[in-house]
């Protein structure tokens, strides 16, 4: 058990401590982004649903898996949110009230493309690291996921003391 400043965290497992099964399950969290593509469904929200299902199946299998699950899920939530805004903005521009492509729209397209590209590259790197039993921390999401997976809450540290019947 380590005390990192104000927060208390469970010891981080080293690569040799992580069983192969856990490594593969952790890697799977990042590969969920391909799940929808394999099914022929290009809409980003499908990936998110697949990731959510995967999270609920594996979340109780230890902090190493949980960290990777959460990191993947958080990053996917943000990119999917951006993609949904992009889809609705595009539909609105081309089909409804306005037919004008504004400079703000072009800027947003650049941001969405870049965000998806970064998400894709970092997810591949993180999947490879997870397969090796290692960590790879995304900006923001890495720290938040680590905190969620490894912090020791009051409920976790409650120690049971066996007592005699007298």
């Amino acid at each position: 058990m380590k005390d990192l400043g104000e927060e208390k965290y469970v010891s981080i497992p080293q690569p040799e401590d992580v069983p192969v099964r856990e490594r593969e399950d952790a890697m799977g969290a990042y590969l969920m982004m391909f799940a929808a593509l394999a099914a022929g469904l290009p809409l980003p929200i499908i990936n998110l649903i697949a990731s959510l299902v995967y999270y609920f199946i594996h979340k109780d299998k230890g902090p190493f898996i949980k960290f990777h699950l959460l990191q993947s899920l958080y990053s996917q939530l943000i990119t999917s949110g951006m993609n949904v805004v992009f889809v609705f903005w595009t539909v609105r521009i081309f089909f409804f009230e306005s037919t004008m492509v504004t400079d703000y729209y072009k800027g947003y397209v650049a941001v969405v493309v870049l965000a998806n590209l970064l998400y894709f590259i970092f997810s591949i790197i993180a999947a490879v690291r997870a397969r090796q039993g290692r960590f790879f921390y995304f900006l923001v999401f890495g720290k938040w996921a680590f905190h969620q997976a490894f912090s020791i809450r009051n409920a976790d540290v409650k120690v049971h003391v066996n007592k005699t019947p007298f």
Partner: protein
Amino acid sequence: MRKSIGRELLLLLTFFGSIWAVVSYFSEDEAEDCDVIPEDLYDKLGDFVIDDFSQSSSLILIANDSFSLESWNEILHRLDFDNSNCRAIYLSRNPEVNAYTLPGDNIVVYSGLIEFVESGEELAAVMAHEFGHVKKGHVRELLKERFAMTSLIMIVSGDAGGNLLLELSDFLFTAAFSRDNEKEADYYGLELLERGNLSTRGMLRFFEKLEEEKMEMPEIISAFSSHPLSADRLEYIRTHAAKSVGDSLLNMNWNDFQKEMLDLAAHGDQ
């Protein structure tokens, strides 16, 4: 921990915010017109629909930019008929009381409508209403909405681009203009009648007859109409007709015209 996450979040937001700002600032044009249904595609779609339509029922050309039946000249002249308010008008043999605007800005008039109306002024009013749908781009608007919905559904179902044309084709016979669109077409029609110095009482009479017969708009004036004839609609037409300055009648014999059109519809243009 929270401070550290906050710093990274700020960094991330600054990075993406800067990208957004820089690309927006250095974009070449202020705004670009990106119509999802360009003019030539719209015209091609119109040809496709007319071809499809003529497979199931005979269509007789009444007027287009280079031709018009002599008996229609008076009505078309008074309504200032040209390419901007309609590409072509067709007559179709069908007992239903109906006239509607198709994509490609083609208007189809059923022989049932010719039989139902009692004067050239009433027919002119119906035509003016349909010209309103064309002029205000209502069909294009409907197509865009349908195109968007179909595309979204196909993206979700993984069948992007598959049966889009067929979907649109099916839609043509089931879609409906909004109440606002109908009102806008009515107002444009009234304006057109006045410009042609034609009495707007023809429109009023036509709508009153619909009311008397308890007929609903979908079967009457436009296949794209979904709403029954509302009291409000009749009221503003009545108000407009009362103030109408155009009062001249068409220089045509309605009975001869009606007989000629019904014969034409019955025997085709042979």
